[in-house]
């Protein structure tokens, strides 16, 4: 590539960077700056109650698009008693109420400003209206509730303010608790959060509708483009600009509709709540972020994708222990409607063509009937799937008789654990398990399996053997030179070498590495594909995963290992995944400090590869070119600059490798020569905070010489 081409490409990339989206809100920053400044001041009116709001208040507000029921609002207080010194509520001071009214209006204004909405827009938001009603109901004198309530006024007020909180504030509060919510708390939280986001979405729907024409000019290459819209929002009508600035912060993305004809406001939350919410509750948010599932009656996804989505929704619903939340009810309706889209033909979504099921829908049905475990959709679809498969996918009487209400019934059974009784033999029985290695119990089981196979000469005798037991049996076979047995535990594939070649490769090798400390299998890692179960067994040395053994099993068959070529050829130097501990770092720094005094080679003679690499990096961090040069490999075969040239390179110090890296793996890279020398790559695993999609580790080239380990010139890849 010449300079001209390079410059041209850089120019083009510079233009591309204009597409970097912007969701910046300067008001939000100013607010945070102000909050920082106000942190030492005590609020005169408490905004936050001392107890968790999602335990204190159970709010069921379901207010969605017109096809759903209007929300029923109730509040039950779990407060444990009056605070000391609170006034009896029948004797509240007029001034208190007046102050609260003023304060409440300020709170409203604050949120209105955060959203940058007009009065009309802000007043139309569902949760704002609710908060207003609650304020009137529970705070204002003369109302039944305020007269009869024994809850302190301040606490009632604080509850009303909670109702007024924006989604962004709810998320922020949740993150600040720094706790992991249990499922119940998580479900209550997302119920409230998603309701508020939905109510805000309605307001934005109106904005989009009213400004459809001007928004439809936001196109790139002739197609509507959301990034273009964001990037050119300045100059658009104020409501649109304000929406584009503020909606993303409230969990709403302005995106192009699935049919690409218009913009829509859709639910979109980042990953920040993943660490706070229970897994099941978070799954509901993921499901919601994939809406809409259809548009104008037509599926928004390819049928196969929609089938996977349906499986995910089903699993989430069945795993939910907390019942009767609004979001669960809505998700159930989505589940049934999506199933209907995939299974029932309609004018807007045709699944048959010339009386025959379309191929893509047959594939989707196949995915559904292979759903893992006790699955309502599998239970529902299996009968007519088999029947129609025999009739070349033509509509038949079995298909005509099906009713989607049966699926709803199956789901209800699954939720209470009763569906399994109707699906004998379908349940996947291999539960997660782990053993410290070696383990007496596991060894006994392995012996039992070995005896069974020897006595029956039938591999089917292993049908009850778990994935871990199969791998352990393979290891047993290695140790006792039962090569036939070991080989027979593999699935015959193109990758599996012939018996003799396999034995040559595995000579002296263990299926379970010698330094392994734990072996485990996780049920959730199992998936069904083409009628077979696929999974893997993980092998650890302390906290580091050092090997994974993939396995496969036909239904009713036995687990078989899948052969994978060894990462490191037999006989090659390999030190697998060692965590870089504080002690190691300390030793390396000490070694460096000693070595840099006079570069005494005797210090390097017995130093390990990691120690020498660490010393080099420590020298780099300190801008110590001299020590770096002394550690370099000097060999005619390899390019190394002269000392003078090397010391002339500019440097102001490098990064601190102790912060950057957290583990190493060392793998021999070249054959060992006649002198016993060879090159290795020291793979440094990046600290998790530095890992990106494109990079999780860096290679560092070294060579084992007769004088010890040395570093290749320009070692870091």
């Amino acid at each position, binding site marked *: 590539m010449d300079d001209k081409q390079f410059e041209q490409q850089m120019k083009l990339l510079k233009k591309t960077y204009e597409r970097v*989206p912007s969701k910046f809100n300067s008001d939000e920053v100013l607010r945070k700056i102000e909050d920082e400044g106000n942190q030492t001041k005590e609020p005169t009116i408490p905004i936050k109650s001392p107890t968790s709001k999602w335990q204190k208040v159970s709010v069921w507000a379901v207010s969605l698009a017109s096809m759903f029921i209007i929300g029923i609002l109730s509040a039950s207080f779990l407060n444990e008693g009056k605070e000391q010194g609170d006034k009896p509520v029948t004797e509240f001071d007029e001034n208190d109420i007046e102050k609260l009214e003023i304060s409440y209006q300020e709170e409203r204004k604050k949120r209105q400003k955060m959203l940058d909405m007009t009065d009309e827009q802000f007043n139309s938001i569902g949760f704002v209206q609710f908060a207003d009603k609650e304020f009137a109901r529970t705070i204002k004198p003369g109302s039944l509730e305020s007269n009869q309530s024994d809850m302190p006024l301040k606490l009632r007020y604080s509850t009303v303010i909670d109702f007024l909180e924006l989604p962004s504030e709810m998320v922020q509060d949740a993150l600040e608790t720094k706790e992991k919510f249990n499922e119940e708390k998580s479900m209550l939280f997302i119920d409230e959060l998603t309701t508020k986001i939905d109510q805000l979405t309605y307001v934005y729907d109106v904005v989009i509708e009213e400004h459809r024409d001007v928004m439809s000019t936001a196109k790139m290459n002739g197609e509507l483009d959301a990034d273009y819209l964001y990037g050119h929002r300045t100059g658009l009508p104020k409501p649109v600009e304000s929406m584009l600035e503020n909606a993303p912060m409230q969990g709403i993305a302005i995106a192009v509709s699935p049919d690409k004809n218009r913009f829509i406001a859709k639910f979109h939350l980042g990953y920040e709540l993943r660490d706070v919410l229970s897994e099941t509750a978070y799954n509901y948010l993921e499901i919601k972020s994939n809406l809409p599932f259809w548009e104008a009656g037509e599926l928004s996804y390819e049928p196969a994708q929609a089938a996977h989505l349906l499986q995910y929704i089903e699993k989430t619903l069945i795993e939910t222990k907390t019942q009767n939340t609004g979001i669960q009810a809505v998700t159930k309706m989505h589940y049934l409607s999506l199933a209907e889209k995939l299974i029932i033909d309609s004018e807007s979504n045709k699944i048959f063509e010339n009386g025959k099921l379309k191929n893509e829908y047959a594939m989707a049905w196949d995915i559904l009937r292979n759903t893992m475990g006790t699955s309502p959709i599998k239970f529902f679809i299996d009968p007519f799937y088999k029947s129609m498969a025999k009739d070349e996918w033509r509509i038949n009487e079995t298909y005509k008789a099906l009713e989607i209400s049966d699926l709803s019934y199956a789901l209800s059974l699954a939720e209470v654990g009763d569906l399994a009784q109707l699906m004998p033999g379908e349940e996947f029985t291999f539960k997660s398990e782990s053993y410290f290695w070696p383990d007496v119990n596991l060894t006994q089981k392995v012996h039992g399996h070995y005896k069974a196979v020897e006595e029956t000469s039938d591999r089917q005798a292993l049908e009850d053997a778990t994935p871990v037991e199969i791998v352990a049996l393979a290891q047993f076979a290695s140790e006792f030179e039962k090569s036939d047995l070991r080989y027979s535990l593999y699935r015959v594939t193109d990758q599996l070498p012939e018996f003799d070649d396999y034995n040559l490769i595995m000579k002296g090798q263990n299926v379970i590495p010698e330094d392994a400390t734990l072996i485990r299998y996780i049920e959730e890692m199992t998936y069904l594909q083409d009628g077979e179960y696929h999974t893997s067994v993980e092998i650890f040395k302390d906290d580091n995963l050092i090997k994974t053994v993939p396995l496969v099993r036909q239904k009713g068959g036995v687990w078989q290992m899948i052969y994978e070529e060894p990462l490191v050829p037999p006989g090659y130097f390999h030190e697998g995944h060692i965590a870089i501990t504080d002690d190691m770092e300390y030793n390396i720094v000490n070694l460096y400090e000693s070595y840099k005094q006079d570069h005494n080679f005797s210090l390097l003679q017995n130093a390990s590869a990691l120690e020498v690499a660490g010393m080099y990096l420590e020298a780099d961090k300190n801008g110590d070119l001299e020590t770096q040069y002394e550690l370099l490999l000097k060999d005619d075969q390899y390019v190394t600059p002269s000392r003078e040239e090397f010391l002339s390179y500019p440097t102001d110090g490098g990064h601190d490798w102790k912060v950057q890296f957290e583990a190493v793996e060392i793998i021999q890279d070249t054959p060992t020569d006649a002198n016993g020398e060879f090159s290795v790559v020291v793979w440094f695993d990046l600290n998790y905070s530095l890992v990106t999609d494109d990079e999780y580790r860096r290679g560092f080239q070294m060579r084992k010489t007769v004088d010890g380990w040395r570093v290749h010139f320009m070692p870091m890849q």
Partner: protein
Amino acid sequence: MNELELIERAQKGDKNAYGDLMRLHHRTVEKFAFQIGVKADDIQDVTQEVFIKLYRFLHQFQRDRFTTWLYKITLNSARDYYRKEQREKDKEEKIQEDVNFGVTTRSAESKILVFEEDRELHEAIQLLDEKYRIPLALFYFQELTYEQIGDVMNIPLATVKTRLLRAKDQLKSALSQKGDAEYGR
């Protein structure tokens, strides 16, 4: 009102003036953050952090060094962000998602880097050592002079030139070899 006047007013505590400054410069910060490796989904957080920090230091620097400080703080904020963030990679959840949930959305990055050439070049830049990546981004994408780059990175002019040359060589080589590993000190 020109920018220097805005800065002066902001330094005196005028929040509106600071708001105007932010609106003038937030695109610079967003793009620069992305160019030096901040993920698209994290840009908003980092950008906010930059302007919050900038406000804290606003009174401590001269008006005519505002841009220098903007870049310096963006660099530091990008580094700090990834050091502070408590992100655990849950491998089991990821496998679960990959296997059972075939629906994925386009990554934010792919919406920016639509064309393969751009993606390759951007990724090759991210693979450069920071000491080469930063001056490269400042020179080619932010159009700073050598002197300004030296000011931002606190390195001599000669070092700026050397690093830019090395950065260019490494990039050209990486792109020519299309994915082969490049060595850096």
